[in-house]
């Protein structure tokens, strides 16, 4: 039996939860995220002007830095979820950690691609084995490994425990990525928002709009992704319960003969 056969379709009605992952909270959050993205696009692509040395490429900065903020947040939530799971063995925190790691990897993909596209016109190369870029690539591969571990055919408790341990260990690399520009000398610039920052005015404003937009999008996606993970877990449990019931029935029938 496949997991798709475990339960009949639930007929939607006013009293029942809706047959999707939306709710009043996600609709409100989604509305604010959409408004923030629209404003960020308007200010980032139309209102703010080019920068003196970077030219139009500065506009990539409005998505590049916010994506690393969202990825950092995603991996931090994975760390928190993993630590709490190891202490409480709560399924909620395990699924939250897994959902957030997937979003962290998604935003890390955007980070690497937007960074490469920013690097070509600014540095003259898409990629350089610079400490920041290399440590980010290692971070990316590590969390892909975390997601691969979550898909391994293991007993659920073993899989969750191993993933939680990896979720805790992997976060050390986030710290390495963040401080890599201070610890080692490389091509990547230091903090873009420091006192000696080259951007200002409307460029700063567009960047902060991008930051708010990406964090709202992350929060909205996390709610939906968590609910999808929760539903998958329910189906897995229902399938297991159904399979056990069938096995018991078969055993009982066999015993009767």
């Amino acid at each position, binding site marked *: 039996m496949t997991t798709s056969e475990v339960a009949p379709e639930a007929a939607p009605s006013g009293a029942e939860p809706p047959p999707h992952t939306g709710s009043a909270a996600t609709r409100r959050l989604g509305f604010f995220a959409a408004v923030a993205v629209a404003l960020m696009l308007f200010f980032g692509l139309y209102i703010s002007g080019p920068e003196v040395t970077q030219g139009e490429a500065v506009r990539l900065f409005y998505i590049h830095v916010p994506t690393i903020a969202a990825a950092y947040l995603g991996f931090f939530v994975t760390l928190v979820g993993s630590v709490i799971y190891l202490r409480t063995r709560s399924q909620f925190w395990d699924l939250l950690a897994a959902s957030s790691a997937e979003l962290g990897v998604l935003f890390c993909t955007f980070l690497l691609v937007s960074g490469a596209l920013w690097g070509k016109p600014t540095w003259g190369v898409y990629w350089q084995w610079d400490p920041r870029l290399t440590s980010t690539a290692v971070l990316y591969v590590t969390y892909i490994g975390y997601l691969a571990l979550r898909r391994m055919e293991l007993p659920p408790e073993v899989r969750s425990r191993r993933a939680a341990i990896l979720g805790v260990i992997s976060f050390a690399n986030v710290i390495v990525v963040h401080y890599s520009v201070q610890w080692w000398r490389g091509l990547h610039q230091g903090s873009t928002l420091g006192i000696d920052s080259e951007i200002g005015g409307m460029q700063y404003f567009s960047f902060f709009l991008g930051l708010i937009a990406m964090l709202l999008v992350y929060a909205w*996606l996390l709610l939906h992704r968590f609910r999808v993970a929760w539903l998958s877990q329910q189906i897995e449990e229902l399938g297991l319960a159904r399979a056990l019931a069938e096995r018991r029935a078969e055993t009982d029938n066999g015993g009767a003969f």
Partner: protein
Amino acid sequence: MHWEFVAVGYSFVFGGLALYTFFLLRRGRQLSRRVPPDRRRFLD
């Protein structure tokens, strides 16, 4: 100058987000139809 990099970057990020969102919401709908209402307690 460099608008082509900006266009590709924004298209990749927001196109990617749109695609991910589409498949995530579709999967949510498919799964929630297979789960009895009493087990959808995180959907409120």
